[in-house]
């Protein structure tokens, strides 16, 4: 009895602190971005917030954000997709070969997302129907398989030169003459519009549709989802297929940005995607995380790389820093959860 009362008192004293936790849970990551922007602005006042640099960041993160969004959905189901970096390369190679074969641009444009879609579906079917013990194994296998196929069909050499209609997606500029006067150099990258639209669509999908709700439920407790009559395997196939599809869109954006398909495209980008998702607050154990968090995670990685480049910090130090941030972000999450369960 005494113990109970004491706990109750502790709870009251803690209440302000406890009330702040959900606030930080929701907006802490945006706060972190603002702090990063402020610091980098102070360190590089002329360059960092210039129109050119900001659009540059958005262009750099454009294709990576597609991978992160796909991997995020997979992680919400408590799965993992290691093959997205290879899917982006294979879809890029497929696009390049279709382009070289002289197909019309609108067909070429569909090739990359279609290949991504099929690769993702292959992952999903493998994980569910072959009853792989963990998605890690299936997608580790396809990480090698997809990149191998990409090199087989291209002969392992880069293919360059795409139609203007393809390039516009990754490299296009929407001029802002209306706001800044005739001939102004300010513009919005087409890819930014594309990723905003896609993130919005997936936000609606995950938060306002039944399948979206079921994806979270599967991550929380697959047994509960099954008991509720949800066809878990079918939902998982949908999730991995969409993840592959998004990687295919990433391939399309990358094609426009680089105007070439090259064997090392997307190499290790699956790890960047996982890092962005984790930094964005998703739980590796599934069921937790938001689309906005993923976007924030992607932006943090992008801003960090950009800022460190501007300050001429060596790539090696960048690796050390990004690794540290991943561990720190998850450690903060661990602390937060400890606090939440203590009350």
């Amino acid at each position, binding site marked *: 009895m005494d113990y109970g009362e004491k706990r109750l008192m502790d709870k009251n004293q803690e209440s302000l602190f406890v009330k702040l936790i959900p606030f930080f849970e929701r907006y802490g990551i945006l706060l972190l971005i603002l702090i990063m922007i402020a610091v980098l602005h102070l360190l590089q006042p002329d360059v960092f917030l210039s129109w050119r640099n900001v659009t540059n960041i958005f262009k750099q993160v454009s294709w990576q954000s597609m991978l992160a969004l796909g991997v995020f959905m997979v992680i919400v189901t408590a799965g993992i997709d290691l093959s997205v970096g290879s899917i982006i390369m294979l879809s890029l190679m497929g696009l390049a070969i279709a382009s070289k074969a002289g197909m019309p641009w609108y067909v070429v444009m569909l090739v990359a997302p279609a290949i991504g879609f099929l690769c993702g579906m292959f992952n999903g079917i493998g994980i569910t129907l072959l009853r792989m013990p963990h998605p890690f194994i299936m997608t580790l296998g396809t990480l090698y398989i997809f990149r191998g196929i990409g090199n087989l069909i291209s002969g392992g050499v880069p293919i360059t030169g795409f139609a203007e209609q393809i390039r516009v997606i990754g490299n296009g500029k929407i001029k802002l003459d209306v706001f800044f006067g005739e001939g102004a150099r300010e513009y919005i990258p087409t890819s930014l519009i594309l990723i905003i639209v896609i993130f919005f669509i997936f936000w609606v999908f995950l938060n306002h549709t039944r399948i979206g*709700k*079921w994806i*979270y439920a599967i991550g929380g*407790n697959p047994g*509960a989802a099954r*008991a*509720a009559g*949800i066809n878990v395997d079918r939902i998982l196939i949908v999730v991995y297929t969409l993840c592959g599809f998004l990687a295919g869109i990433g391939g399309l954006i990358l094609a426009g940005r680089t105007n070439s398909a090259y064997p090392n495209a997307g190499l290790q980008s699956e790890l960047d995607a996982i890092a962005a998702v984790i930094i964005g607050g998703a739980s590796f154990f599934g069921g937790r995380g938001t689309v906005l968090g993923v976007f924030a995670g992607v932006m943090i990685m992008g801003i960090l790389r950009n800022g460190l480049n501007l300050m001429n910090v060596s790539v090696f130090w960048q690796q050390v820093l990004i690794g540290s941030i991943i561990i720190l972000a998850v450690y903060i999450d661990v602390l937060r959860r400890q606090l939440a369960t203590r009350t």
Partner: protein
Amino acid sequence: MSDNLVLEAKLVSKFFGTITALQNVDLHLNKGEVLGVVGDNGAGKSTLMKVLSGLYKPSEGSLFFDREKVTLNSPRDSQNLGLEMVYQDLALAGNLPIGDNIFLGREPTRKVGPFNFLDHKKRKQLTEEHLAKLKINVKSADQKVEELSGGQRQAVAIARATAFNAKIVLMDEPTAALAVKEVGKVLDLILNLKKLGVSVIVISHRMDDIFTVCDRVMALFQGTNFAESELKNTSRDEVIGWIMGKKD
């Protein structure tokens, strides 16, 4: 038997290979009645529940819902007949709010053009109404299930089972993992269901549970009907004796 018969199992047997889990078991349940099923581990209680809910097909024997003979191919079939099972492991997703759990797989939606979107408002309203009807107290319908105590989780699991006008609810050890003060709340909830005209079958090891909520108790022993009695005509000692296979 009374006219209020809602569920009946006649001469049900279930074999797993050479193992006989149930042999010629009879069970009947009336409207608004709480039936306690007791028995030692391996007596066949859980197997019987799984047969009633359609998870297992009986090897022999038949089931009657409202006096009509039925064949259940899956738990979906029994759900459609108004029978819901509250699972021992609760089958809730801790990361989702109470309302989402109650309506998981049966979410209210609204149509916008060709698309079906979740109707968050309606779900919240239905959840609050349902919780109020069962007199379940929680801070908010939006609270995540993982933030709830064991007893509250059990209450949500029961709320989930009864959200769609269930006529029969099966509960497998509903108080097993609960703190003492929470057991009472779950038992109150069972009595509440009874008042609402719902029939309940409770499997429990705890005599306190059986003697607080049940109208009738039946004992299984080694997969067979061993004894059965109106609660008022028996005693704890006698029921404990049945569990161990002793009868005067």
